[in-house]
C-alpha cells in the first residue's frame, strides 16, 4: 500500500488528528518556512505522536549538530534533505547520525531522474518551488533506482493520479490545509482514501485463507467486479428483490413507541417484512444469482439462528441450486423449526458437532467442505465477514437497506435522521443500515452488540467491547480471544449474534470513530422484545431487539426534533419458544 506522509506539523491540535488517522509518516520542518518548528517545539510535538508513526525531520542544508541532537533525543526517525546537500555532506552526516535518509529532488523539465546517485534510502520528488502547493508534470517520472515519495501539490482532488504514478509514498502538506493550517477533515479524507486498499478497511480485512481457496476467491472477486456493473445482472437482482422478496421494505413511523419513550421520533426499517422474515434474503439473492452466473450448481452456507440458512435454501429452491446448510448442534437444538423449514425447502442440513457447536464452528465446517469441492460449489457467506471480496460484496447487497431508508426518511421528514441503530452479529444488517449514511457526517451510526450476561462476564459476544485485534475466518478484525489467540467461546441468547468476530468494515468504522458499538445484555434484549410487541404490535427477532433495547436506553438523550431509525432486521416467530423458556415458561410446538 502506498505510504502517506503528512508534512509541516507545528500545532499541538494537529497531533490528535494525526494519531487518529495514522499516516505512516509526519514531517517537522526545521528550515525557514511558515511551518518551521524549533527544537523545543518539535520535541514536545514528537513526544505526543503515536509510536507507530515515523517522524521525519525536514532540513535545508541543515546543521549536523542540530540533526544529531534531534536524532539522539528520538525527536526524528528519518532525515529529509531538502536543499543542495551533496554526497560529501551526506557522507559526513552519516558518520554521526544513523537514520534513514530521504533526498528531495526538485523536478524540472530535463531533470535526469535515472541518473540520480545520492547515497540515501529514498528520494522525494518535488516541484521546482517546494512549498508552493503546485504539482509538476508527473508523466516525466521514469523508473527510479530507489523508492521515492511524490510531493508537491497533492490533494484530495488529484490523489488518484498521484497514486497511479507508482511511488513508494505520497507527501502532502498544503493539500490538507485550509488558510495555511492543517484541516482535520482534509487529513482524514486523504489518509483514509490512500489506506482504502482493495479488500482492506484500514488495517482490517484481507484474505487470510488456505491456498486451496485463493484462486477461487480471485475468481469470485473478478466475477463480482464484473456483474456489479452489469445492467442485466442488476435488473435481474432488482426484479427478484422487488417481486420475490417484497422490497422496498417499509419505513414505519413508530408513533406509540415515540410517544411512550418521550425522546426522538422513532422510525423502524421493516426488514422483518421481507420474504423469509429477515434482511438475509437481500444478500442471498445477490450471491446465489452471482453463483448461477459463474456456472455453479451447488451452494453451501453456514447459519446461526437459521435465518441465513432459510434464506439460502429459499434462493436455492427458486434458482434451482443444490443446497447444503451447516449449523452448529447448539443452534439446531435452539432453532429446530428453522431446521425443518430448510429441509422443506429442499436443503440438506448438516449438524456441526465440532468446537463450541455454534456459528463460528458452522463457518469452520463450511470452509472445510468448500475446500474439498470448489468446482461446482459457491459458498454463500451470511454476513459482512470472511476473506475479501465477501465483506464488500455482502455490504453492497445489504446497502439497499440504507439506500431505501435514506430516500424514505427524506420523503417523510425532509431531513436526515440524527442516528441509525442496528444490531451487530457479523454486521450485515448494520452495514446495510449504515452504508449510505456514512458520508452524512451528522448521522450517528450505532451498532448494538450482544453482551449476553454482561461484558464483564465470560458469557458475552460483544466483540468490539471485549475483543482484540486478530486474524480469523479469512479476515483481520476484532475477535473475542484469550491471551494466546485462541478464539473464545461466546454466548448470547440470540443465536444470530453469537459470533466471536465482527466484519472488518465495522472494525474500521470503530477505529476511525465513525460508528459506535454498544453492548446490550440478554435481559435488556428480552425486555425490548416484549416491549415492542406490546407497544407496537411487532414481534421482532431477538437479534433486532438488541437495537430496540439500545434505543430505549438512549431515548432520553434525544430531543423531539431528532429522528432515529432502527433497523428491524428480522421477525421473531423463531424466537418465541426460546423467550418463553428464558422467562421460565415451557411451551410445546
Amino acid at each position: 500500500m502506498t505510504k502517506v506522509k503528512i508534512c509541516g506539523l507545528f500545532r499541538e491540535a494537529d497531533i490528535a488528528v494525526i494519531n487518529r488517522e495514522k499516516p505512516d509518516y509526519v514531517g517537522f520542518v526545521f528550515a525557514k518556512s511558515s511551518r518551521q518548528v524549533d527544537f523545543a517545539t518539535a520535541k514536545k510535538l514528537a513526544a505526543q505522536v503515536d509510536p507507530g508513526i515515523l517522524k521525519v525531520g525536514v532540513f535545508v542544508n541543515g546543521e549536523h549538530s542540530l540533526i544529531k541532537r534531534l536524532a539522539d533525543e528520538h525527536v526524528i526517525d528519518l532525515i529529509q534533505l531538502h536543499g543542495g546537500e551533496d554526497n560529501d555532506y551526506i557522507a559526513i552526516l552519516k558518520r554521526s547520525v544513523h537514520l534513514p535518509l530521504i533526498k528531495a529532488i526538485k523536478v524540472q523539465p530535463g531533470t535526469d531522474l535515472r541518473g540520480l546517485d545520492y547515497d540515501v534510502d529514498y528520494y522525494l520528488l518535488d516541484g521546482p518551488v517546494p512549498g508552493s502547493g503546485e504539482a509538476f508534470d508527473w508523466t516525466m517520472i521514469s523508473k527510479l533506482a530507489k523508492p521515492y515519495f511524490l510531493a508537491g501539490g497533492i490533494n484530495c482532488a488529484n490523489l488518484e493520479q498521484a497514486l497511479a504514478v507508482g511511488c513508494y509514498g505520497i507527501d502532502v502538506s498544503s493539500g490538507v490545509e485550509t488558510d495555511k493550517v492543517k484541516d482535520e477533515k482534509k487529513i482524514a479524507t486523504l489518509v483514509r482514501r490512500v489506506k482504502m486498499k482493495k479488500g482492506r478497511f484500514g488495517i482490517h480485512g484481507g484474505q487470510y485463507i488456505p491456498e486451496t481457496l485463493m484462486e477461487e476467491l480471485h475468481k469470485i472477486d473478478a466475477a463480482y467486479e464484473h456483474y456489479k456493473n452489469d445492467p442485466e445482472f442488476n435488473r435481474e437482482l432488482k426484479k427478484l428483490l422487488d417481486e420475490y422478496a417484497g422490497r422496498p421494505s417499509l419505513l414505519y413511523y413508530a408513533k406509540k413507541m415515540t410517544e411512550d419513550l418521550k425522546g426522538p421520533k422513532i422510525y423502524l426499517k421493516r426488514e422483518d417484512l421481507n420474504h423469509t422474515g429477515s434482511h438475509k434474503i437481500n444478500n442471498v439473492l445477490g450471491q446465489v444469482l452471482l453463483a448461477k452466473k459463474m456456472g455453479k450448481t451447488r451452494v453451501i452456507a453456514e447459519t446461526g439462528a437459521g435465518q441465513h440458512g432459510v434464506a439460502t435454501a429459499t434462493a436455492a429452491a427458486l434458482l434451482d441450486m443444490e443446497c447444503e446448510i451447516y449449523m452448529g448442534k447448539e443452534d439446531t437444538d435452539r432453532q429446530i423449526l428453522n431446521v425443518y423449514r430448510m429441509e422443506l425447502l429442499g436443503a440438506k442440513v448438516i449438524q456441526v458437532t465440532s468446537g463450541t457447536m455454534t456459528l463460528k464452528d458452522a463457518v469452520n465446517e463450511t470452509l472445510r467442505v468448500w475446500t474439498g469441492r470448489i468446482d461446482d460449489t459457491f459458498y454463500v457467506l451470511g454476513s459482512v465477514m470472511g476473506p475479501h471480496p465477501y465483506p464488500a460484496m455482502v455490504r453492497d447487497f445489504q446497502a439497499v437497506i440504507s439506500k431505501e431508508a435514506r430516500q424514505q426518511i427524506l420523503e417523510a421528514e425532509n431531513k436526515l435522521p440524527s442516528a441509525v441503530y442496528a444490531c451487530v452479529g457479523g454486521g450485515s444488517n448494520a452495514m446495510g443500515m449504515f452504508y449510505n449514511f456514512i458520508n452524512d457526517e451528522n448521522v450517528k451510526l450505532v451498532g448494538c452488540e450482544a453482551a449476553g450476561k454482561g461484558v464483564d462476564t465470560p458469557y458475552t459476544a460483544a466483540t468490539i467491547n471485549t475483543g482484540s485485534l486478530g486474524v480469523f475466518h479469512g479476515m483481520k478484525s476484532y475477535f473475542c480471544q484469550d491471551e494466546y489467540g485462541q478464539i473464545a467461546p461466546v454466548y448470547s441468547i440470540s443465536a444470530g449474534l453469537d459470533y466471536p468476530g465482527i466484519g472488518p468494515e465495522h472494525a474500521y468504522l470503530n477505529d476511525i470513530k465513525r460508528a459506535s458499538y454498544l453492548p446490550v445484555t440478554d435481559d435488556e434484549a428480552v425486555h425490548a422484545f416484549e416491549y415492542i410487541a406490546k407497544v407496537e404490535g411487532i414481534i421482532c427477532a431477538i437479534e433486532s431487539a438488541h437495537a430496540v433495547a439500545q434505543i430505549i436506553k438512549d431515548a432520553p438523550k434525544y430531543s423531539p426534533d431528532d429522528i432515529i431509525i432502527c433497523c428491524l432486521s428480522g421477525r421473531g416467530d423463531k424466537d418465541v419458544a426460546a423467550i418463553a423458556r428464558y422467562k421460565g415458561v415451557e411451551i410445546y410446538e
Partner: protein
Amino acid sequence: MNRMKNAFTKKAFIAFITAGDPDLETTYQCILEMEKAGASLVEIGIPFSDPVAEGPVIQKANIRALNGGVNTAKVFELVQRVRQVSDIPLCFMTYYNVVFHYGVEKFMAKCQDIGIDGLILPDLSFEESEEVNQFKKRYDLELISFVAPTSQNRVKMIARQAEGFIYLVSSMGVTGTRSSFAGGLEELVALIKQETDTPVAIGFGINTPEQVKELSQYCDGVIVGSAIIKIIEKYGQDAPKHVREYVKEMVAALG
C-alpha cells in the same frame, strides 16, 4: 544457522505432531523417537481452537491438547527441551492468529531463540505473507509456501519466492488419511521445478508406505500427520514406540 537444508540432503520424511497431545512429555518422546526412526524434519503443531484446514483427526488432537492446558508458552518450553538433545530441523505449524496475537516479530524472535527453523501457517495466504516475510531474514526463519491442486495459475508467483521447502497439498479438502490423491501432482511438481530449486514436499492424506514409495519418486519429501496422530490417539502415553515403528516403515519406503 538455519537447519532446514539438512532435512533435504536426501528424500525427506516430514512428521507432524500436535504439541501436548495427549501431554507434552509424550510429544517430547515422540519427537525423539521419530528422529531415531529416520524422520528428517518435525512439524510441531501449536494447537488452535479452530483449525480450519484440519480434518477430524487433527481437530480432535488440537482439542485434546488445549483441554490438557497446553499453550504457546509451554510449547516453547517443549522445543527448548528438544533442542538440548537434538539438532533435527523443526518447524512450527499453527494458525496465523496464534502468531499474530503473540506479536509477529516477537514470535519470530522467540522462534530463533529456541531453535525453530521454519513456520507453516496454512491460513496465511501468499497475498498476506509479507507480514511475516519482512522479518524472515532478521530471525533466520523460513516461511513455508503452500501450493495446492488449484494453484496452476499461481505456481510461478509462489515458487519464485519460496524458501525452505514448498508444501504441495496432495488433494482438495482438509487433512486426514486418504486412499487417493488429486490428479496432476507430478505436473505441478514439474511446474515448480521450472521456477526454483527449493525442495518440494507433498502432504495431506499420506498414510501408507506404498503411497510414500509412489510420491517420493517425483518429489523431495513427504509429510505425514493424521496417520501419526491416529497412533497417538490410539495408544496415548504409550504411543512413542508405536510411532517409531510406523515412521521407520514409512522412511524405508522413500525412493
